[in-house]
Every structure is written in C-alpha cells, then in structure tokens.
C-alpha cells in the first residue's frame, strides 16, 4: 500500500481524538468560575505573564544539534551503500567524520558543551 | 591516553552501578510472591487484628444490664485538651431522697477527638475506654457527633 495509507492514518488519528474529545464535551456538565480558567501555579496566583522572554540556557545545544542532524542525513544514503562500495566509502566518510569530529572537539574545548 | 582510560572507566562504572540497581529491582519483581507485603483491606477485615491499645474512638463501657460507670464528674471533659467531650449532668434523686449529680448525656465529638488518651487517664472510675474501631467515614459531618450513653442506660451500682 502506498502513501495513501498515511492519509488514512492521519484521518484515523483525527477522528479518534476528535470523537473522544467531542464525547467528553457532550457528556460532562462543567461548572465554571473565574479561578478555573486561571493558570495553575501551585494554588497561588501567578506573578506576571507566563509568556515572557526566557533564558534558554541550552540553545547552544540546539545549534550544534542542527549541524549534526545535517550530518546524519548524509549518513543515511552512505550507510545503505557502504557495504557495496567498500573501502572507498569508509574512507570518504572517515574524512567526513574526521572533519566534524574536529569541530566536536573544538566545541568541547571551547566549553560549548558545558552548561552555562 | 589516560584521558581515554578515564573516560572508559567512567562509562564502565556508570553502567555497573546502574546494572546493580536494576538487578535489585528485578529481584523484587521476580520474587514478588514472596516479597509483597500488601494487606488486602477491606477483604481482610475479619482477620485484621488491631493491637488492643490502638486508639480508635472513645466509648463508654456498658455492661449487659445497660449500666455504665460514669458518675458525670466531668474529669474527662476538663482533661480533654480540645473540648471533644461535653458532659451534661442532671440531678438524680437517690433512694435516700438526696439529690445526686449524675450523667445525663455524654456528648462526644469524634470529629474533633485526637485520640490522645488523656480523658481515659483522667477518668477516676474507668468508665470510658478506647475502642479499636477506625472506620469512621461518613458523608455527613454531624454523624460524627455521638452520644455515648446508650438510651436508658444508668449508672452501675456501687460506683461513686
């Protein structure tokens, strides 16, 4: 079966969740009050907005991830054929790895992989 | 080279310590039948043995003639640190024609009682004791306010 099954699955997922949520909406009688809609923060009122600017200490990891992620997509086609091609492929990817590993070591040395 | 050695040592040590932990939990899982300690309340209600000193609630001891030993002296009421006991007294007329203080209603607020045992200690006639019941859940709080002297009960003879 082809890619059409993906659509079937997506529709199934939407139907499943949609129906479940719909049933929940229909069956329950909900009470409302002002406090109910407020964000839950351990039972006291929140101070200030929650959508604030926020210091994501780990964005450097996300940067590095992107680089390695791209590396990964090159490795997939390589992995498929490496057995067929043999040594050349290993050497080519060895160079590829070596260069990236240099970068990795550089990052390590610079302390980019350390939490700040 | 020592860097690599340390590195590998780190990894090995970590894996080992994790494996020890996993071994332990898996042993519990395997010997579950033997190790489990769960008691099946309420199925075991009949066999559930509470120690005789367990303090579940205060009761007024009544004997088979519906007689108790409470003189209405309010010693327990005074001893109770949080006023869970309220003794309402009345005046009985003794056969000799004398007025005598006696217990009218023994109101006991189970919802407030802290099972501290002070009232039992204070009672000069050992009229009250701690019972081993504990299933006091109710859907109405007023059900927890109890009158301990049973209807028609009277003081046992000879208790001063």
């Amino acid at each position, binding site marked *: 079966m082809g890619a*059409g099954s*993906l659509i079937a699955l997506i529709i199934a997922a939407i139907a499943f969740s949609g129906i479940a949520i719909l049933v929940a909406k229909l069956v329950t009688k909900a009470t409302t009050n002002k406090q109910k809609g407020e964000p839950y923060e351990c039972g006291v009122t929140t101070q200030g907005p929650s959508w604030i600017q926020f210091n994501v200490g780990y964005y450097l990891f996300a940067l590095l991830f992107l680089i390695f992620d791209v590396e990964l*997509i090159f490795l997939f086609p390589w992995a498929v054929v490496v057995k067929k091609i043999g040594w050349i492929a290993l050497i080519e990817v060895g160079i*590829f790895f070596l260069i990236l590993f240099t970068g990795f070591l550089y990052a390590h040395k610079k302390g980019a992989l350390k939490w700040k | 080279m020592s860097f690599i050695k340390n590195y590998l040592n780190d990894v090995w040590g970590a894996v080992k310590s994790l494996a020890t932990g996993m071994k332990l939990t898996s042993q519990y899982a395997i010997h579950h039948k033997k190790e489990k300690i769960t008691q099946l309340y309420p199925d075991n209600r009949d066999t559930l043995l509470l120690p005789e000193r367990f303090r579940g609630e205060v009761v007024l001891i009544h004997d088979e003639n519906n007689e108790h030993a409470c003189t209405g002296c309010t010693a327990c009421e005074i001893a109770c640190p949080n006023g869970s006991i309220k003794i309402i007294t009345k005046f009985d007329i003794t056969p000799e024609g004398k007025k005598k203080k006696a217990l009218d209603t023994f109101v006991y607020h189970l919802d407030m009682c802290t099972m501290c045992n002070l009232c039992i200690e204070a009672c000069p006639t050992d009229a009250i004791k701690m019972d081993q019941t504990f299933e006091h859940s109710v859907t109405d709080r007023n059900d927890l306010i109890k009158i301990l002297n049973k209807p028609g009960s009277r003081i046992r003879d000879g208790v001063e």
Partner: protein
Amino acid sequence: MTASQIIFYLIAAFILGCGILSMTTRKIFRSAIWLLFSLIGVSALYFWLQVEFIAAVQIVVYVGGIVVLIIFSVFLTQQSGTEMPKAPRKRMIASILAVLFGFAFTFSLIYKNNFKAGDGKFDSDISRIGDQMLSTGEQGFALPFEAVSILLLAAMIGCIVIAMKAPTHQQAASQAEPKENEGNISAKPNAQ
C-alpha cells in the same frame, strides 16, 4: 479528477495557507508554528512526488531542527506573548503590490514557457542517491559531500565563536552576584 490530483491541490492549499498565515500572524510563536506546518506541507508534497528521501530529510532538518531552533531563539529574545507591531500601512500596500506584480510577471513567464518533459524513469531510491553521492566519477557528488563537511565545520565553529562571545551586560548582571554578598557574613561581623 483522480484522487492523486485532489491530494495535490489539498497539499498546495495547505502549504500556501499556512505560509500566508505564517507571514501575516502577529504572534511570533504562532508564526513559527504556521511556518512549521507549511514546511510539513512541503514534505508532504515531496511524498506526493515520490521523493521520499527528500521528504524525510525535509522533516528531519526543517521541522525537527530549524523550527525548533527558531522557537528557542524566539523564547530567548521575545516576550512571546506580545503581538508584533503591525507594519506601516504604506509599506504593507507597497509590498503587496510589489509581490503581486512580481508574481504575475514570473508566473506569466512560466506559463508561456513550454516545458518539455524528459524521458526515462524517475527513481530516487536511496541506494542510488548513496551511490552517486559517494562516487567520484562524472555524476558523482563526492567532492560536494566532503565540502559539506567543511561547511558544517565552519558553521559549527562560527556558531560557537559567535554564541560564546564574552558575556555582555545582561549576562554579567545575572552572573556576577557579588561574591561577598554570597559569602559568609557572620565571619566578618564588622563588614560594611
């Protein structure tokens, strides 16, 4: 219309719709999410074109990587709840006009052009991609492949150098808790 056609138009509408939303919504986080959906749509288009590998790459890199990174940077630099200011009306109208004109122009070019379909069977099997990627021959992409590693290395070093520049005042403020404040006051009772 066959099912495949319907699906194409659906995908196209999805891509364009999400793209437009992404470029017009004023909440930056939502904008990123719409962009994400648009990119997923593009990936679906690749599936539809039966270049599965590219489709998956699209998901991995764009959706799993770039958009997540964008979202992170949104959190770092914005009050993500506040709305972005509207562009001035003048500029908006001007850009709409310019864009429409450019679109009309380009599309008329495309429309006039008579594309000749080539012959042969399209096969984007991954082993073929791999073969060609590693081969050093005429059709090979071995050199770009290695060049990519250099590019990535450069990007990585660049990122690290830029991102790890000496802390500016904001970081200085957050990090430099004066040490003597933290330290033990009782040890020197006559401090201050």
